[in-house]
């Protein structure tokens, strides 16, 4: 190979930007995908670090992380999986915190329920189905079950329940008119892409265990400043405004 060829290859290599801006990979629970995308853009602008986002259900992300998935940060939709990751050592101890708190909304688009008292419908569903997320697998489902039990409605509505695999499918059951009513996420109820609701009622936070969404730094990023920086950014005012604009409460 000629001297000039070697020299030009050398120059080319120099021209490749140094890998200081190696993007960080953030694993995000599906329900938080849209705010996460917006937060990532804000963080990229303010810090110059690129962010890559992967979405799946919290349970799937958890299993992927335990099996060595190359993620730097987890934004879960519950506090159980981050806690388990911290215990097993796959998450960095002491980095776990609540970045958002979810809420439940009873929601319907059934014209027959227009201007009716939404909660009262639960006592007499008739032929209607009530969609909730699967309490076994989805935090919003567990919260829905707690609410129905604490309101002493569980036994009444149980024969009419259908279970979404996650909160997004639960919403789809209601929006597609297959379920007359659904207990969906407050963040979903604020989404402008939804059709007009005919009745809606916010479930008081006191009627179920808090829907804490926790974040944690993952083991392979324990020395990664860009990843740690993203977590501090999540606690800052700018990020908190974005999170609450998407219908989540912010922890004190």
């Amino acid at each position, binding site marked *: 190979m000629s001297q000039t060829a070697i020299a030009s290859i050398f120059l080319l290599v120099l021209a490749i930007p140094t890998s200081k801006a190696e993007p960080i990979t953030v694993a995000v629970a599906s329900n938080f995908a849209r705010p996460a995308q917006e937060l990532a853009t804000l963080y990229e602008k303010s810090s110059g670090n690129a962010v890559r986002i992967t979405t799946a259900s919290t*349970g799937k992300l958890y299993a992927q992380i335990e099996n060595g998935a190359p993620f730097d940060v987890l934004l879960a939709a519950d506090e159980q999986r981050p806690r388990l990751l911290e215990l097993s050592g796959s998450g960095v101890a002491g980095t776990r915190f609540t970045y958002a708190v979810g809420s439940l909304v009873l929601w319907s688009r059934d014209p027959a329920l227009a201007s009716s008292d939404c909660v009262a419908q639960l006592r007499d569903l008739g*032929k209607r189905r009530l*969609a909730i997320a*699967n309490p*076994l697998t989805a935090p919003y489902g567990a919260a829905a079950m707690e609410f129905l039990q604490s309101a002493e409605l569980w036994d009444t509505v149980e024969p009419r329940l*259908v279970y979404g695999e996650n909160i997004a499918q639960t919403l789809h*059951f209601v929006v597609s*008119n*297959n*379920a007359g009513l659904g207990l969906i996420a407050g963040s979903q109820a604020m989404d402008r892409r939804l059709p007009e609701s005919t009745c809606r009622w916010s479930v008081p936070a006191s009627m179920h265990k808090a829907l804490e969404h926790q974040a944690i730094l993952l083991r392979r990023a324990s020395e990664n400043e860009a990843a740690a920086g993203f977590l501090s950014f999540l606690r800052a005012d700018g990020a908190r405004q974005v999170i609450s604009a998407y219908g989540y409460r912010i922890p004190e």
Partner: protein
Amino acid sequence: MNASTLFEPLWLSVQLAGLTTVILMFLATPIAWWLAQSSSRWKPVVQTTVAMPIVLPPTVLGFYLLIVLGPGGAIGSWWVELTGSALTFSFAGLVVASCIYSLPFAVQPLVVAFESLGQHSLEAAWTLGASRMDAFFSVALPLSVRGYLSAVVLSFAHTLGEFGVVLMVGGNIPGETRVISIAIYDQVESLNYSSAHQLSAVLLIVAFIALFAMFFINRRWKQR
């Protein structure tokens, strides 16, 4: 894990697969017969339509079935008038969905069987004065037993292994639409790996036995 959470979903899956298979044999026979005999220019259209569920992801089928089978859908609203409740989130709805989903697995082996009959035996029967129906039942059907065996086993096994469509239109109701594949999924998602193992092993064994029986009997037939 107690016996009812293990056997209820399994039994439900077996019922669903069994009923779907029976219905499909009645449904697939005329379709396959027509496909084997016809030279109509519509044949490719029918062939394509029947084969679609092989290619389409279950999510596409499920998405459309939620619309069609729902209380406001074409089939769903008719069913509501008939029975008072919608087809989605019901066992009957799963049967309809499974019939669509497994249709190609019933039709394809039958088409092959009917095509290999040859016109001669049928024409012989017609010459001897048998009606078309008569010829079908006394000549074509007995000669196509192997095709029916394949169709039965494949429809049954494919319905047993159904997941995506049921996930989308079933609503995961215990004893009604929570079939074994959904139960396994729930157990994995809630980190109950030992229960997932038990259910998966059962399904693995059932699937192996069903397919093995088909290949084994098929070989026996060939040797005769």
